[in-house]
């Protein structure tokens, strides 16, 4: 089923998606927001550029974007997969609790902000290029990987990564000598164990984007974890 989005607004697009039980190709997409918001069991291919909040509250299924995506992709996502064959805007995966977001290119500001994890749900975000400032701010769970491949930017990550981080893990394919981390995180070079973990995350990603997994794994990775899951414990005095 093909939905020509050229003359449809977001409400109509979502109605059409519901009519075909979420299995469709959307063509000529140009900035329509909220596509597949709150849906599950979908399989959507998008040609063009979807607007903000693509797959917000997504509860399962797959969205593939053949182009760039804008802001707030996968906001509060619970499950499923979003694949972007291009760059992605700001606040991708805000508070996502489950599922995977795979980005071929660069991510904007605040990627993976407040990402969580819960029981068996461990969200995963892989950014093929570089990430903007405030990567993984307030992260409390899940895994963020920045591969720094073919990026337009010089640095793998912008300013203030992992500020307020109190859970989860960030992998950056870089020595990160030029990156300033906040005091409450621990940064170290990836160990063999970390690489095995990385391999399990990267297999599907490398398949999707036809990348050489071994070549990627052969590089230096920096691992960032929080030093406490209770960063503000000593901040208060009862009054």
């Amino acid at each position, binding site marked *: 089923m093909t939905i020509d989005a050229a003359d449809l607004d977001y409400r109509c697009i979502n109605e059409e998606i519901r009519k075909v039980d979420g299995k469709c190709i959307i063509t000529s997409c140009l900035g329509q927001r909220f596509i597949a918001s*709150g849906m599950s069991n979908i399989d959507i291919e998008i040609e063009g550029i979807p607007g903000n909040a693509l797959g917000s509250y997504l*509860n399962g299924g797959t969205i593939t974007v053949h182009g760039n995506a804008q802001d707030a992709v996968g906001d509060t996502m619970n499950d499923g997969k979003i694949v972007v064959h291009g760059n992605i805007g700001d606040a991708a995966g*805000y508070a996502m609790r489950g599922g995977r977001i795979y980005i071929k290119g660069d991510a904007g500001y605040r990627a993976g902000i407040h990402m969580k994890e819960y029981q068996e749900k461990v969200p995963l975000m892989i950014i093929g290029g570089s990430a903007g400032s405030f990567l993984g701010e307030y992260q409390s769970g899940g895994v963020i990987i920045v591969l720094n491949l073919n990026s337009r930017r010089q640095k793998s990550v912008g300013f203030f990564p992992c500020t*307020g981080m109190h859970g989860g893990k960030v992998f950056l394919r870089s020595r990160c000598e030029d990156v300033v981390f906040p005091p409450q995180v621990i940064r170290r070079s990836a160990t063999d164990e970390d690489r095995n973990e990385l391999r399990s995350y990267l297999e599907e990603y490398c398949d999707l984007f036809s990348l050489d997994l071994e070549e990627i794994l052969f590089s230096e990775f920096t691992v960032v974890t929080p030093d406490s*899951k209770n960063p503000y414990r000593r901040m*208060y*005095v009862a009054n």
Partner: protein
Amino acid sequence: MSIDFISPEFDVSRNESRCIKCRICVRECANGVHIFDEKRGILISDETKCVNCQRCVSFCPTRALKIIKNPNGLKSNANWCSDSVNEIFKQSSSGGVLLSSMGNPKKYPVYFDRILINASQVTNPPIDPLREPMETKVFLGKKSDVIERDSDGKIKCSTEPQIELSMPIMFSAMSYGSISYNAHAALARAATELGILYNTGEGGLHEDFYVYGKNTIVQVASGRFGVHEDYLEAGCAIEIKMGQGAKPGIGGHLPGAKIVGDVAKTRMIAEGSDAISPAPHHDIYSIEDLRQLVFSLKEATNYKKPVIVKVAAVHNIAAIASGIARSGADIIAIDGFRGGTGAAPTRIRDNVGIPIELAIASVDQHLRNEGIRNNISLVAGGSIRSSADVVKAIALGADAVYVASAALIAMGCHLCRNCQSGKCNWGIATQRAELVSRLDVEVAKTRLVNLMTAWRHEIMEMMGGMGINSIEALKGNRLMLRGIGMTEKELEILGISHAGE
């Protein structure tokens, strides 16, 4: 150590001639104030731990106990009051940010207490609510500007989704985690029985309470705790929390120690991890961005549920409300600076925000001036203490009110303002199983129903006295109000005349 010693705020007075050494006080105090000295066979007290929650006093079978203000104190000083000095002691020993609970206790003007309600005499006679029909039902949501008719001349009834309430009162947001399972259960059951709503707060919705969904507002805050598709579908409305009256401009940190068992499960986060709600929603920097969140929620729930945007009453609230009214939200909830909280930095609680009375009046007037008042309903909260406050809030321009502190008091809260300790002796603001079990859900539910039923009757009596027989006719009816002891400016903001005028 000795510099930091703060003289206890209270003395425990035990009338030895009445005390029968039954040790109920020992059992009831989770703070460990009462101790039985086995050797001497007497009860002693450690009043440094007393928070004056009145639990022991209420349960002492011989009324032998009194908690009284400790007469020992610093030399009196109209500028450096003992609170100010003691707070400096606490901070200079710990380096910590002062943390307090419940609403702003400072001596700011309470405008509700300076507003008087009208009554009919001779003309436009009063209505007796016991004898004549009186409507307290309200609908919250966008109202149509024009009446549309079909080709047969019949009115087209296609309104935006509405909340129906049997009376203009709802229980405002208190998260599971800040209050106990039993407290949530009582609120949910009372709301269902009363035909009103309660609000999950930002801590998610416990699986046991999905059955009360028709009477539940589910909240989405910056931390997005427990927010998923089933949760959004479960409630009858969705509230986006932008701010809270007790702590405008800041977020919340529920400490990891309280994120255990069902609280972690309901928030859908790992046990023991701090639940941090950032101060801003990091995807909202403008009204346009707010609109995006409003419509992502509407899309996710297929436009079946009204969306509420809750903000704290702050300076320029009227302009903020105007922006919210244009964001696509159906309802704006405004929380005044006296609103309660399970924990807030003392300085924020006591110094930030404005009284709800002024906020309601200025928002209602501003939205009317802009011709968009019907686009949005207005819910006011932040220390609504009685049915008279409800009537005044509605006459100032609110569609309905939010109550939380009053509901907690109905369930047994004695306002000791120590929620942050997690040792609530009344089983409300605690997650300790032995304390939670003290709150009998059935009793608490009945007390909530009693309170609201009594308020509803009082509202009808006050309306009847004014010759008004529906909430709709009271809404924004400021002619029914007069101020007393207020300045011209205050009267101007409230949009009311002075008593005697």
